[in-house]
């Protein structure tokens, strides 16, 4: 079976932390769906543990995290760690939101695959996922 053509890319769009600004998360979820991906949206105020559990249950290729509150340095590394801890080594973690440039390289070193700053086109995110999601065996 040819996994590349049959299996749709599966993405968990997640909103951790206390922040309720979900405009970005919902626009991204819809854009990815329109691009033919399977998208699961977690809803608001998910802990890193809840996000990792949902990622495993839904068997996703990527987790897109939206954070506007400044809590990314606390939340993102923990999500990466939990995913790796449950054997999801290839699952990409993407971050979108208000992230100071100083934090970008640090977050990448801690395993975040890409950080999308304000003004990013949804097409760039679709392209990134298509190019970077590892084909399944």
């Amino acid at each position, binding site marked *: 079976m040819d996994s590349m053509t049959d299996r749709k890319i599966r993405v968990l769009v997640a909103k951790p932390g*206390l922040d*309720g600004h979900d405009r970005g998360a919902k626009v991204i979820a819809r854009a990815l769906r329109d691009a033919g991906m399977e998208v699961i949206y977690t809803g608001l105020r998910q802990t890193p543990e809840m996000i990792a559990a949902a990622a495993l249950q839904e068997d996703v290729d990527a987790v897109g995290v939206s954070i506007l509150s400044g809590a990314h340095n606390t939340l993102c590394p923990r999500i990466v760690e939990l995913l790796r801890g449950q054997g999801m080594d290839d699952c990409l973690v993407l971050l979108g939101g208000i992230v100071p*440039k100083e934090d970008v390289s640090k977050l990448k070193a801690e395993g975040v695959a890409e950080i999308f700053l304000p003004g990013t086109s949804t097409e760039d995110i679709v392209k990134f996922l298509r190019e970077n999601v590892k084909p399944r065996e």
Partner: protein
Amino acid sequence: MPETKETVSPAEAEVERWERETLAPTIKKNPETKKRFESVSLEEVNRLYTPANISDQDFAKDISFPGEFPYTRGIHPTGYRGKLWTMRQFAGFSTPEETNARFKYLLEQGQNGLSVAYDLPTLMGYDADSPLSEGEVGKCGVAVSSLSDMEVLFDGIPLDQVTVSQTINAPASVLLAMYLVVAEKQGADWQKISGTLQNDILKEYIAQKEWIYPIRPAMKLVIDTFEFCNQHVPRYNPVSVSGYHIREAGATAVQELAFTLRDGLEYVDWGVRAGLDPDRFVPRISFFFNAHNDFFEEVAKYRAARRIWAREMRKRFGSTNERTLKLRFHTQTAGVSLTVQQPLNNIVRVAIQALAGVLGGTQSLHTDAYDEALALPTDRAALIALRTQQIIAEETGVANTVDPLGGSYFVESLTKKLEDGALDYFRKIDSMGGMVEAIEKGFPQREIQDSAYQYQKAVERGDQVIVGVNKYEMDEESQIPTLVIDESVRDHQVKRLDQTRARRDAGSVGNALEKLKQAARNAENTMPATIEAVRAYATLGEICSALRDVYGVYEEPSF
């Protein structure tokens, strides 16, 4: 004989002549650059507006004079000639000590009102030491967990002289109680103090999404504050019905107008059903609108808001008291329009948006700082934002005359179009049974999500230009300094919480919380018990958790 031919007015005939004789040859030679010209709300804008576009409006009935029904041209007969708008910059970050220092700095610079931004744990009713607060303490606003923090926040700021606006919603009754107790400790008379509590829970479920309890008990808490203020703090505004967040979440101008005003009507409705006299509590309801990029659409929106409110209050509640009919509002420039790219451009965006608020007749204004797409503002950025207002007020001359855009064919026509659009939404929401029911069905939420998506698509197609983002981009390194909130803020706040808990009388805290639960269970007014709990130094988290025990928590269905 019935007339079969549609009559063409002299104005329309003139427009047809102009189109034929002058426009057509020009367009043939120099076609326009776009097929469709549209506003930031993606609404089509005509080439030209003439008397033909406002022939359905009657000057006396629809436009009228400032200070007279339906207040299209403003609520004050003298506009800003008697009193300028209040320059009220929203501020709050880190510890109460740091925010107190920023407040004093802003007052020294000529600002005349304060506006508190609380951090996310406070907005959600969690203390700084809750595990859910990790990484968020002091980040998006100031951290306040108990009366001890509130005492520091307003230290040296006389609450009987400075009016304070508090952006707090789900736990608003608790923060109001803290504010009143601090005022009392300063020796200020509750009968004399003023200020504003955002306390607009409906827009939380619609847009901002910082809720705690299910909608109906949350509405009950709002009505409790109306009733309490009515009796004990008569000059206080217990709600600021907010379109700001609705717009930021992606709504169009007409959706902002419609959902905000319909929320306002819902509060009046609930207040009346609770036995309050509208002519006593409605004059204390204020509004809060966004100032987005589309200049004329925004000016028209504020004018339409006043007209709709006056007409609806008269129609639905039979009000004749002019203080009930007059819509007062605060304006904030659109945070969502600020760009990370080429951030100094934001100073220009803010100035133009602020000008729209002023020409729309706002009572108070917050101008965003240019660095707010990156972080909370630095002192320098916050100062430029304030200076922007002072330049508009004192250099440009726009405050010299009342409603200077009144009578513009375009602005009057747009005002009517926005009014009609909002009334269409009112009919839909009324047919669902009201705003609470519409929210429970997910109606406004879906409408806004859809608009947000359409706007994003328009940006990606290049139909909506964002300078520096999808046009005139540059390779640049962000070089502006930004404010960094240290992780040590949490330690500082947790330490004060520990001290507060150690110092207070645990017995009176327990009793006060039990009394509050009783009041909530018996559907009594919860304000007196909340004040008692605050006085005993019960924390915000403890008080909200007591109410959660009675009311439960809100779970958002997926829309």
